[in-house]
């Protein structure tokens, strides 16, 4: 699978840029939206949770920002991947190429946007919370890599299943909204009752969010064992997702 992808790296590169170009074409502000969107979101969250809604977490806005865009990335990528194959139906039906690149291309183009968001969040935290650069920020590339692997591993089977079952497209947004409340996006994992904690530990996204909270919000180094667990989890999910996609792939041109 990996050699196949490497052989078609030019296609992947073009798909990523194409996705970005299509998203911002016909808009006056163009690529500036990629910056403006997260800036507005950050201003809104800081405004609402810094001055209006008071939550019993120190600098809640900083806590929220540390995981918010990670979760937005998960939701946007998975929802986009549920339709990406049917949007390229004639390509899937008329060409022999690794169709997983359509999914990976979505995940990568959105990751570029996420990186912009992450930099803005880091900027806000450095300026208004830590007043300095915590050394834990060095870990961020590793966390981003784990995030990409996890999401690609989930998006691949979701994309293929959406071709067979249209209700993946309908059910996924609802499921993701629910998962958002069941993951430590809006509240710290320390608020979770001890009994439910074991379930939280099974959710790799929850573990990843926790790592982001420690490195960004706390500005501390997470236990290296926790990082290793998330990375291993991510590799496992990506591998299994890739295998599942490979299994379904030959029938896609017939069904789509």
């Amino acid at each position, binding site marked *: 699978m990996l050699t196949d992808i490497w*052989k*078609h790296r*030019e*296609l992947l*590169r*073009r*798909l990523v840029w*194409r996705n970005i170009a*299509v998203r911002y*074409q016909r808009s006056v502000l163009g690529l500036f939206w990629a910056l403006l969107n997260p800036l507005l979101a950050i201003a809104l969250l800081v405004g609402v949770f810094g001055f209006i809604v008071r939550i019993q977490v120190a600098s809640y806005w900083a806590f929220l920002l540390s995981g918010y865009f990670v979760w937005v990335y998960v939701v946007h990528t998975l929802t986009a991947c549920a339709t990406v194959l049917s949007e*390229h139906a*004639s*390509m899937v*039906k*008329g*060409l*022999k*190429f690794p169709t997983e690149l359509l999914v990976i291309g979505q995940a990568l183009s959105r990751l570029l946007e996420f990186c912009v968001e992450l930099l803005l969040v880091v900027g806000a935290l450095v300026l208004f919370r830590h007043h300095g650069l915590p050394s834990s920020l060095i870990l961020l590339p590793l966390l981003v890599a784990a995030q990409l692997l996890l999401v690609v591993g989930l998006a691949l089977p979701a994309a293929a299943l959406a071709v*067979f*079952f*249209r*209700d*993946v497209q309908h*059910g996924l947004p609802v499921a993701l909204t629910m998962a958002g409340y069941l993951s430590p996006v809006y509240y710290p994992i320390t608020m979770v009752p001890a009994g439910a904690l074991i379930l939280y530990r099974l959710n790799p996204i929850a573990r990843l969010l926790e790592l982001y909270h420690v490195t960004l919000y706390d500005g501390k180094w997470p236990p290296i064992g926790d990082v290793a667990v998330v990375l291993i989890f991510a590799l496992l999910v990506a591998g299994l997702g890739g295998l599942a996609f490979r299994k379904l792939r*030959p029938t896609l*041109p*017939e069904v789509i």
Partner: protein
Amino acid sequence: MTPSVQPVVECRGVAKQFYAYTHRTTSLQEAALRLLRRRPLHVRQASFQVTDLTLTVAKGESVALVGANGSGKSTALRLMAGIYAPTSGDVVSRGRVVAVIELGATFHTDLAGRENVELYLAALGLSRSAIAERLPDVLTFADLGDFIEEPLKYYSSGMRARLAFAAAVCADPDVLLLDEVLAVGDARFRERCLERLRSFHARGGTLVVVSHDTDLLRALCSRAFWLDGGRVVASGTPDDVIQAYLGAEGAHN
């Protein structure tokens, strides 16, 4: 041009089974209900599209596939192109096989014609420099002028076909599979396509053409297969096979 012995496309006892569904479960809710009631998810009957397809195409050959609608010609092309996996049997092809099926290189309606071609060439596995090298040739041949920078959604079907054909033939394939591509272009473009296909053939390219245009097949091909029910019922010179096929069609009507 004498075809060399080495086959570039080989189908050995290839079967591709499709199913006619009298019931098909397409939602998870329905799937859960049917599992609970111990009913099968899909109720289907085998409708064989292609059975026991055996044919070899040698390098440099130009081969025609004829047959009625639903005889399995397009399925045969998709099998040769590797888009469909055979249910049983073997399909072996050597070199770069490029198929122009459906809309060919034109699939993203929001993108300009040129961007579609670039994406198509990349999907065929061409490198960045190879794409840059081939692109002028495609644009010259498609001859769409400034329209090449317009989004595909403003193209007519004839313009789409021109772009698709140009992209495929300029991708430097070893084997070119064409499915009714020349039917939509105008007379002038058709003439240029034929010329291009002849030079492709003269340079040792292999061609498999599906068409109902028997004059085209006679002009272009040196061998023909008549497919019926996904099976080769006759093969030989285009004249003989087409005559037999048209005779059978006439008798049928």
